[in-house]
């Protein structure tokens, strides 16, 4: 049955308006933000959150770095690169503890491990992605034809030798719905595992108003907690924002991403917490890949709130 989305709980008059710029269109990977807004988590922390849905190539880093948006979502690798380029942004909250990025191939090809996808067939990969550089360095590619990733799965369905990058919560579900049998290899298994959907802010805001930033993080955590437990009201909302996602797809996506969000040992802290060690690994990997010129100062990259 169809549930109508809940009315958002209004924030108080004192509530400070803040904006969050997403790097893609509203999908379950942002569910916690919408849930937090709908169930009043942000309002309880005196925030009135405006969520700006994104698209292909939204300049989230630039928007946050220049103050066009107070918060944004990007990948952890992008945070490091942004700092190296002079955009002073700081990571606050990591939605995905395990990177949700993967490579999806047809199960019928009977490929055993990630490495195998680089030796035959066609592979759609977005160029310029950090993990593409990593995989290329780690597994020498031969016999595979690389084409640009176009965001869809049509070519995957029409070509049995076609593989492509994916978000585990998105493309495999779409492909399965059309009757394909995709096998998914997580990029994280290769040793390259940046946090995914990381909420960031600009350092200036963090320094001027740490309380505000902390409120945002706390509210976000509550929102995600809520979404992990009760995804369906938020999914109903997401459906209205993004009608191409039906509710079955939404709940399948929510299920698929849950282990990647809460997989980490809860003793390390609540949802969204990040470890310095992992940032360090990532920073070293990016440096080795020559994606940044200098070694990053890991303590500058994130704050643990």
């Amino acid at each position, binding site marked *: 049955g169809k549930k109508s989305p809940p009315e958002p709980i209004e924030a108080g008059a004192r509530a400070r308006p803040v904006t969050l710029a997403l790097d893609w269109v509203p999908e379950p990977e942002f569910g916690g933000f919408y849930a937090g807004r709908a169930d009043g988590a942000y309002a309880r922390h005196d925030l009135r959150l405006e969520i*700006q849905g994104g698209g292909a190539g939204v300049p989230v880093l630039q928007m946050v770095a220049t103050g066009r948006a107070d918060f944004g979502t990007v990948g952890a690798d992008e945070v490091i690169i942004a700092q190296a380029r002079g955009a002073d942004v700081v990571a606050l909250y990591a939605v995905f503890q395990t990177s949700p990025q993967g490579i999806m191939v047809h199960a019928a090809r009977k490929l055993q491990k990630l490495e195998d996808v680089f030796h035959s067939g066609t592979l759609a990969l977005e160029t310029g992605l950090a993990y593409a550089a990593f995989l290329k360095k780690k597994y020498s590619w031969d016999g595979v034809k690389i084409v640009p990733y176009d*965001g869809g799965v049509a070519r995957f369905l029409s070509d049995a030798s076609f593989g492509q990058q994916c978000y585990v919560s998105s493309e495999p579900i779409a492909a399965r719905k059309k009757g394909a049998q995709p096998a998914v290899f997580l990029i994280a298994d290769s040793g390259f595992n940046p946090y995914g959907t990381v909420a960031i802010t600009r350092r200036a805001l963090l320094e001027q108003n740490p309380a505000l930033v902390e409120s945002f993080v706390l509210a976000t955590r509550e929102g995600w907690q809520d979404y992990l437990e009760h995804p369906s009201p938020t999914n109903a909302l997401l459906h209205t924002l993004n009608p191409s996602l039906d509710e079955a797809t939404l709940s399948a996506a929510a299920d698929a991403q849950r282990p990647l969000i809460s997989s980490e040992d809860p003793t390390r802290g609540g949802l969204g917490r990040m470890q310095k060690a992992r940032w360090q690994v990532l920073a070293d990997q990016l440096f080795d890949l020559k994606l940044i010129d200098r070694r990053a100062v890991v303590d500058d990259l994130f704050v643990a709130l």
Partner: protein
Amino acid sequence: MKEPASWRTLWQHALAALPPVVTFSIVIAVWEGAVRAFSVPAFLVPPPSAVLLVAWRERVALGGSLITTARGACFGFLLSVTVGAFVGFVFSLSRWLERGLYPYALFLQTVPIVAVAPLLVLWFGAGLRAVSVSAFIVSVFPVIANTLAGLRSVDPRLSDLFRLYGASLPDSVLKLRLPSAIPSVMTGLKVASGLSVIGAIVGEFVAGFSEGNAGLGITVLSAYRQLRTDLLFAAVLSASLLGLSLFALVSAVSAVLLGRLRARG
């Protein structure tokens, strides 16, 4: 020579509407037939029946998106018309200005929106304004080029006449150059009308949307990713419909203006 504006003209209007209707029916029939005959997978090309169905089911969402995109496209188109006509006019004043500045106008046309997206979003904010500017960037060049060509096409003998009577610049623009340029300008506007729609959609890809009113661009992106090809086609056809409406508007204005301009004496 005028006939009574009665049955005859009515009949003619009906006839004028016939060809699009006929070809539309043929196209739809062939499309549906081909999809069925070759059993083309629906995720590649859906049959028109499926597209119509989803368009009907999602009519509210699609309608909303259409309006959002229409606003961006229309603002961008209006910007193009005014700025493009003005720039074309300025270029027509002097070969020097033209030579010096034309490359920058051309630059606007060859720059991928994604490359200037950060600047667009930073300067104009996400949403309507950035989308309008994107529509503008994509559609302004044809207006400039055609305005310039039109203004340059003034009959030199008529220019002589105006020179002789010491016409002021505004007079010579309003009473000679503009009327002479109108056919060409109108062609530019026809080209720009379609481009402004695609400009708005591409703008929406990168400028995203403020909440609640996602444009067709977002629908396209997201339907594409979800392989909802029927919805994708419905969105694309809505965009074409929008382009067609703008085009029809321009054509109507053009017909009226050209009618008033008459044939060459």
